[in-house]
């Protein structure tokens, strides 16, 4: 192992390996209430934790962990393409030091530079429902994209729905950290393997669990506490009234972090969680600017949403999309353009960043505005 690779002390690393061994035991313990029990358990020292979770095999497990030598640990890390840092090293993020139940070591895959000097106000955590609506996914992606573009590190959990959208938005324009409930070399959920690979290559995947560790139900609320502590603000995009995302929000509030929520329709079950948070005094997050204002102070950093200048045809086409024409046919009909001309205009607008196109050929407006006198920066209806 080279000197430049970040290192962690063997004791802290052994803790991670112990957690992986305890996976099934804690799972049994925490089945009744996985959300509330696991962070409490994780405050315990090794001996106490083993005594609570697996009293019958406590001695065996501890002996197995003690038997792991420093070289073996590092070998396992290197074999999985991972590295680690622990609470005794400089690389360990400042935000995590605030938490009493903070992980002893972080096992990571990707660019260590992302953790260097990472302060809570330099990062934002975006969480939300796995079963998100198209509204939630769009907002999640826009927030991810714009906050990453504004220089914040976007933290999320690589789960289905909002998490993946936030990551996808962020990898396009800036930096992102994925916090996993399994080993950082395990792509979970499997459907997000390509996203996971991309984040590993350009950004950072971290976890409390050692390489190869499988996810358990209790490891997700456990990783939520890392997400909540890493960032200065946690934004809930969409969540049902009782949802894992709200655990993250509670944990963030307990740590004294800012809490933001994206308002949604009052009759939408998917927005019940954030709407309740708003009623309880969370910050209203309408767009990335709201997050920047809350995190850094009002007006401290302004988003530059101005795109390149548009010629009259492109401006007309953009206006047509804003007024509800979502497909190429609709644009052509609305503007009485021939089909080819409308297609070319839409492709150019997509390239300039004013529009995005889904795999279904449906166009949506981004937050970007034309240089001057353009339409206000609202997303398409």
């Amino acid at each position: 192992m080279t000197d430049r690779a970040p290192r962690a002390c063997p004791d802290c690393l052994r803790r991670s390996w112990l957690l992986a061994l305890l996976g099934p035991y804690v799972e049994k313990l925490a089945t009744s209430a996985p959300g509330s029990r696991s962070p409490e358990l994780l405050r315990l020292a090794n001996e106490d934790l083993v005594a609570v979770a697996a009293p019958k095999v406590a001695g065996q497990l501890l002996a197995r962990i003690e038997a792991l030598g420093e070289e073996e640990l590092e070998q396992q890390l290197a074999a999985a393409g991972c590295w680690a840092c622990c609470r005794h090293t400089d690389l360990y993020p400042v935000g995590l030091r605030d938490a009493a139940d903070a992980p002893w070591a972080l096992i990571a895959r990707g660019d260590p530079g992302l953790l260097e000097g990472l302060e809570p106000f330099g990062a934002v955590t975006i969480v939300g429902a796995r079963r998100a609506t198209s509204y939630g996914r769009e907002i999640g992606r826009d927030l991810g994209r714009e906050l990453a573009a504004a220089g914040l590190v976007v933290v999320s959990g690589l789960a289905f729905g909002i998490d993946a959208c936030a990551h996808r938005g962020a990898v396009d324009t800036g930096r992102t950290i994925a916090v996993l409930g399994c080993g950082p070399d395990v792509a979970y959920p499997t459907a997000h393997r390509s996203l996971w690979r991309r984040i590993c290559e350009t950004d950072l995947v971290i976890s409390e669990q050692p390489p190869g560790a499988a996810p358990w139900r209790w490891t997700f609320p456990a990783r939520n506490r890392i997400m909540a502590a890493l960032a200065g603000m946690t934004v809930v995009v969409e969540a049902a009234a009782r949802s894992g995302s709200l655990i993250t929000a509670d944990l963030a509030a307990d740590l004294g972090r800012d809490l933001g929520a994206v308002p949604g329709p009052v009759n939408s079950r998917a927005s019940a969680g954030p709407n309740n948070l708003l009623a309880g005094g969370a910050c209203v997050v309408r767009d990335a600017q709201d997050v920047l204002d809350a995190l850094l102070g009002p007006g401290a950093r302004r988003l530059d949403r101005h795109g390149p200048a548009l010629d009259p045809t492109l401006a007309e086409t953009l206006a047509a999309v804003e007024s509800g024409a979502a497909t190429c046919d609709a644009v052509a009909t609305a503007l009485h353009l021939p089909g080819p001309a409308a297609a070319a205009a839409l492709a150019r607008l997509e390239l300039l960043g004013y529009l995005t196109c889904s795999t279904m050929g449906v166009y949506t407006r981004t937050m970007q505005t034309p240089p001057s006198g353009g339409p206000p920066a609202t997303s398409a209806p």
Partner: protein
Amino acid sequence: MLATARTYTLDGIIARPVRVEVDVHRGLPAFAIVGLPDTAVREARERVRAALVNCGFDFPLQRIVVNLAPASLRKAGPGMDLAIAAALLSASGQLPGTGLADVALAGELALDGATRPIHGALAIAEAAREGGVEAVVVPTENGAEAALAEGIEVLPLDGVSELPALAAGEWRPEPPQPLALRSEPPPGTPDLADLRGQPHLRHSLEVAAAGGHSLLMIGPPGAGKSLAASRLPSILPPLASAEALEVARIASACGRLTDGTASGRPFRAPHHTISAAGLVGGGSPPRPGEITLAHRGVLFLDELCEFPRDALEALRAPLEAGQVSLARASGGRTLPCRFMLVAASNPCPCGRGESDPDCACPHIAVQRYRGRLSGALADRIDILAAVRQPSAEDIGGPPGEPSAAVRERVAAARERQARRLGAGRTNAEMTPGEARECLLSAEAGALLAEFYARQRLSGRAHDRALRLARTIADLAEKETIGAEEMAQALQLRRRDRD
């Protein structure tokens, strides 16, 4: 006494020679057919007996054995009735001279001795010509079809009662006129003028037709996807005469040429409950599937996401190769299937599309639904057209440009492709190497490079955009792909991911 006759059995779309040997000798009256006959062939006994008796011939009350050689080949269908009857007449001394040993006979018999049309008369006439036979006797209804095979005399026959005169050389039927193969769509074909408004969909159809690109239409039910697809054959360029013969051969083998329905480019729209065997061909002996019936035409898969997965997977290799090889224990057959794939799908299970506020489909269900679109088959699809409900104004508006005008542009674009790539090849078939050799203007190159970098296109998507741009430039009669064509291609291309 022994007599023989030549006939053919249909195997896929080709005819294989069969020699009918009839032996009549003393013994208890019996009539046996040997040589791997299927049920239809075995039932020829009853048809032949009744036909001969009803035409005033003697049916020998002796032991009759009919052998169909080669004995290892399975014989199928009723097309051997006529040959069996002729050989039987010859063996029982009721035909003068050598009988009809030098001509091939194919036809089904009615109980009154009249001939009935058969499948594959064209293939049989061609096989007879290859086998060095002088003339082929076919039912009257199949005469025009069989006459499409040049270089062999076709003798259309009304009934078994004409056999003695024919064998004696006293009488020859009028040679039939070969069937007029239409290269143009027949009158009454659905016309593109019916598609009102929807300029983008029209443009997508035109580009797809011009470059032979496969097309996927996504839109709510009733938006005109099926209407658009059924108009596609009418804007495809006219069939070359060799191509028209290929289409006729397949139609003939399926018995759809005689009634005159199969002319011009075929349009096949199988229902989504079709099996893999129905789609690519199957059975034993193998029968052509929908993809072979769509040869040189359009295969339209409506509700693509509802098709069984194995049926769609089975399409992949044939799409690439332009032919399908069906291996059976009795040997392999290769059937042609060079078709344009056109597919249509709803945007989500309920059909409204997720951007519609009334759509109640959970995201997971939508993803699962679309998952079927993103399989390996989708990789072969070049163009995505998002179709929307036409407005009242569109529907009440003037008719669109007629097919004939569009077809002219498409034909001109295809000619340019043939000059560049070789006869019969289209832009959709360009190899990646050929695609990257296309002449690009500086702005077009910059546009593609920027899109490639910003949207992180895959290499495949990059080449797909190039092929589409080349087709659009061919339609615009340009040697070099300009920025405008490239922008259009980038919009038309199928998107790999959200």
